């Protein structure tokens, strides 16, 4: 069985869902003839035709607005942001219309907005963003950010089948770098469930997306020093899997949160509050964060390297916390 990249897994999910349900349609800039800026949708136009794979003008507001309307009329649109940074342009459509529609009018919007996110590929300040927290703060949305090919496929299928808007962040650093063998039979991964990627007794490292791999690498090194870190992959940021987080912290008593998003207002703060509320008397040390710096993503490669968390920063923080 061939190994499948994270990118190919996303294409498989789109392909399978479009085969399964004729209501699933794609919209986005260059998703059709060109096959998408990263070739995620390559071949789909040929297979499903122009009525279901639509190249759009360069207006994110128009794309998402149209998709919301399609959702009301019974379709299940999947919108691609060419780079997730541009999702800021349709902030109003997403937070004021898509997110509140079910609550206000009883009219759910079965919409998926997906796109390449994150840094580490020298994309500079306008092509490297991690804007997930704007939307984690918005009740009515679901926010997904997978770390593996298996999850990318299974979670996207669940997102497309969900009756409410789901934002699906794809880490572009992982597109072709992470791959694995996928089951031949159909599967989905439930939204809202984190997973323990590596069990450990000394501290819990919570992470997601590209930083999940960084955390796993760090855990491997720490293990050689006798520090056993449990690594949790959040997979879904909204809703957060409170149970898995608390169960782990109650065992290890120490928590390190690693994310590529910038520090202030990052999900680490929310997780810290949640753990203080639910497991304060189980804490044996401060809740520690390793995150990007509070700046735009630098274009210069050495500056970007300094900006992003890396294995050695995670190891250092975990080591300090372990001996606290």
């Amino acid at each position: 069985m061939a190994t499948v990249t994270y990118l190919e897994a996303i294409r498989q999910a789109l392909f399978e869902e479009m085969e399964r349900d004729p209501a699933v349609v794609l919209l986005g800039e260059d998703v059709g003839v060109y096959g998408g800026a990263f070739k995620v949708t390559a071949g789909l136009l040929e297979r499903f035709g122009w009525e279901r794979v639509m190249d759009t003008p360069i207006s994110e507001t128009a794309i998402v607005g149209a998709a919301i309307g399609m959702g009301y009329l019974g379709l299940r649109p999947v919108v691609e942001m060419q780079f997730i940074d541009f999702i800021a342009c349709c902030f109003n459509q997403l937070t004021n219309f898509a997110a509140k529609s079910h609550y206000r009018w009883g009219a759910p919007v079965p919409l998926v907005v997906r796109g390449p996110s994150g840094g580490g590929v020298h994309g500079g300040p306008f092509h490297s963003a991690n804007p997930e927290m704007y939307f984690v703060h918005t009740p009515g949305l679901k926010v997904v950010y997978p770390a593996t090919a298996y999850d990318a496929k299974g979670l996207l299928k669940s997102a497309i089948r969900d009756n409410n808007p789901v934002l699906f962040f794809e880490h572009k650093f992982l597109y072709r770098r992470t791959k694995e063998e996928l089951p031949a039979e159909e599967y989905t991964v439930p939204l809202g469930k984190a997973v323990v990627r590596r069990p450990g007794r000394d501290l819990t490292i919570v992470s997601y997306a590209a930083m999940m791999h960084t955390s796993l690498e760090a855990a491997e090194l720490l293990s050689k020093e006798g520090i056993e870190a449990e690594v949790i992959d959040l997979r879904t940021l909204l809703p957060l899997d409170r149970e898995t987080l608390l169960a782990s912290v109650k065992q290890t008593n120490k928590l390190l949160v690693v994310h590529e998003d910038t520090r202030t207002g990052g999900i680490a703060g929310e997780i810290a509050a949640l753990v203080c509320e639910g497991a304060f008397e189980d804490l044996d040390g401060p809740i520690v964060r390793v995150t990007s710096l509070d700046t735009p993503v630098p274009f210069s490669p050495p500056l970007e390297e300094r900006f992003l968390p890396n294995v050695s920063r995670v190891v250092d923080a975990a080591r300090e916390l372990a001996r606290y």
Partner: protein
Amino acid sequence: MPVEVVMPQMGESIFEGTITKWLKKPGEKVERDEPLFEISTDKVDAEIPAPAAGVLKEIKVGEGQTVPIQTVVAVIDADGAAAATPALAAAPAKAEAPKPAATALAPATTTPAVAPSPAAAPAAAATGAPAAPRRDGHRVHSSPLVRRLAREHNIDLSTLRGTGVGGRISKKDILAAIQTGGPRPPAAAPGAAPGVPGALAHVVLENAVPRERIYFGRYEVQPMSVMRQRIAEHMVVSKRVSPHVYSLDEADMTRIVELRERTKGEFEKRYEVKLTFMPFFVRTCIEGLRAFPTVNASADGTNVVLHHEINIGIAVALDWGLIVPVLKNAEEKNFLGLQRAINDLAERARTKKLKPEEVQEGTFSITNPGVFGGLTGLPVINQPNVAILGIGGIQKRPVVINDAIAIRSMVYLTLSYDHRVVDGAVAHQFMGKVKSALENWAEGVL
């Protein structure tokens, strides 16, 4: 307007500080940034500047007291008037309350806080109250988990010794106490220290003889300063943990002495820095450490940690003790850079201006008993290093060279090393390298 003065956090892993001296009395005027009090922490001693100009209104924490960081230790009346008149007190209130109606009320509400009224003091002092039980004046640091387990198993935390950072009682400590069926005797805890990397576990300073044999005749008792206690603990642990071995060698310093004589005037004129012997020793030690990396190392249980940086600790004697500031990345500096850094660290050690990180992360140390006229000395290893070089006094001595007796400038060098990591063969080769580098010094210094 009263300004609260707090115990500052002098480094990431520091949780408390001791006030060693107040430099101002209540009622005295202070300028902003003028030294207000001296503190002593686990890592350094420092003068703390006043956060605002005004009159020192109240000292809440006296000399010799240890308090957690951020505790309010004093209050400065920033208006500069200790016995504030209502008119003065109203001035800042006006700025905050633009509504005319509020100005009338303002003097009434602000006056009690500004006036030296004893009634206001207890309420403010309550915020600085200790949060955890104390023993021997030490706050017991633990965690929510440890406190819950202690409650559930009926264990008195003040009877436990912690092995966490700064002596903190960690999960490991309380689980061990629960397993052994209650509080362990304090003396047992240091035995568990070898697993603890980095920070020195708090050590019990024991007496070698019963106390009654210590007090006789006429005497006075001086409590050890915090620095003295830390030195004592460090030395006790170092001697207990590291099996010390000593190597003695001598080097002919004639070339360097002559070079220094010849160039020191010009050196000082050109760079405005005194030319001392220390950079010569640092430079030659770097050569030795490069050739024998196990001397530039630390021991961690069954691992040897070989440091890739060469960070040289240089012992600086102070009137009130001893401190070892660290010259970081010494291998990256040229001769002038070394001399400048050495002088700067020593100067700031003497004026209490060192930052906590500047006394940490050393990989090798040098001490210089020679400056006090010592022929030589056998130093105790500065943990977590595995070796320390002692430099004796440079003296002219008759030396046999090619069967003739010559007068040469000689120095005794001693190396104390940790036999867990360094064996005699390596130590002597290291010393040989340093010696030959000193004797064959070829680098210009100008």
